[in-house]
C-alpha cells in the first residue's frame, strides 16, 4: 500500500491523521479512496469537475505528478505521496 501524507490545512478533515496507507493502483484511485474515507476532503482537493484544485501540488516520491503520468501515475507499496498546498505565510 502507498503512503499518503496530509498537510496541516487538511488534517481537520482526516480526524487529525497526518499520514496513512491506502491500497491504490494509481494517484487518481488513491485520491478517490481518500475522499471515500474522508468525504469532506473532496471539496478541499478537487473542484466540481473532479480535477485537482490549482493550489494543490501532489508529489510522488518527491516528484510533481505532472512530471509523471498525472493521475495515471502508478503506485507501488513503497511509494510516498505528499500533498503540498500553496502557502504564503510570513
Amino acid at each position: 500500500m502507498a503512503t499518503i501524507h496530509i498537510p496541516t490545512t487538511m488534517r481537520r478533515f482526516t480526524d487529525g491523521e497526518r499520514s496513512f496507507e491506502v491500497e491504490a493502483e494509481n494517484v487518481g484511485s488513491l485520491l478517490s479512496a481518500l475522499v471515500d474515507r474522508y468525504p469532506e476532503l473532496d471539496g478541499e482537493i478537487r473542484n466540481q469537475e473532479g480535477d485537482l484544485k490549482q493550489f494543490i501540488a501532489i508529489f510522488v516520491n518527491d516528484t510533481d505528478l505532472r512530471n509523471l503520468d498525472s493521475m495515471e501515475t502508478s503506485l507501488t507499496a513503497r511509494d510516498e505521496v505528499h500533498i503540498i498546498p500553496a502557502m504564503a505565510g510570513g
Partner: protein
Amino acid sequence: MSELFERDELARYERQIRIEGFGQEAQEKLKRSSVLISRVGGVGGTIALGLARAGIGRLVLAHGGTLTHEYMNRMLLADPADVGRPCVEVFVERLRRVNPQLELEAVAENVSADNVQGLVDKVDLVADGAPLFEERYLMNAEVVRQGKPLVMGAMYGTEGYVTVIRPGDTPCLKCIYPQRPDYWTHIKVFPAIGPSPWIVGATATMEAIKVLTGFGEPLAGKLWSFDLENNSTRKLVLYRDPDCPVCGDREAREET
C-alpha cells in the same frame, strides 16, 4: 585590503570567507549586490537580518503599515516597545546597527500593481515573504518580465517551503500553483510560531547568497519543504508548465 570594504568591515565576514568555495570573491559579489524584500515580517525580516549580517551591499524594503502586537512572536527586527511605529522606520534602525555600511531604501508600501515594476527594477534579486498571493503573483510576473531571480519563502503553522525561481530556467510560481487557495483571502489566514518563518527566512537568505555569488547549488526547480511538527523535510522536484500564462512560450502568454 579591498577598496570595496571599509576598515575592519571584512573582519566581520572572516568566518564565511573561510568556507571552501566562498572566499573573498563571493564576499565582494555580495557587497555589489542588491535585493528587494517584499514584506519584512517573520520570513522577510529574517532574510533582511541574514543578508545584512552576511554583507549584502544594498537592500530595498517594501512594507506598509505600523507594528502591532501580533507581529511580535516572529519578527526579529521589532520589539513590543516598537508597537505603533511605522514598520520600515523600525526595520531601518535595526538593520543600520547590524550593518553600518549597508545601503538601505525603505518603501512604506506593500507591493502593488502600481509599484512592482519600479521596485523590481532597482535590484538584482527579489526575496518574497509576502502574506498575500496577490502580491506574490505580481512579483512573480515582474521578475519573469525583467528576467531577474526570485527566492520564494512561505509558511503555514509549523510547515514551510522555499524555492528559487530563475526565469527561463525554472518553473515560476504560476507553474507551481496556478491559483491561490480559496481560503487565503486576507493576511490573518495563517497561524505562525517563530521557528517556522525563521527557518524559511534563514534558508531563503542562503539561497539569495548562493544565487548572487554563484556559491553552491541553489534550489532552482526544487521546493525544499518541511514540517517542524515531526521534523520531516523533503526536496521536491517541481513542474514547469510549457503553457504557463506567465513564463510559458510567448504564444501561450499572448493568448491570455
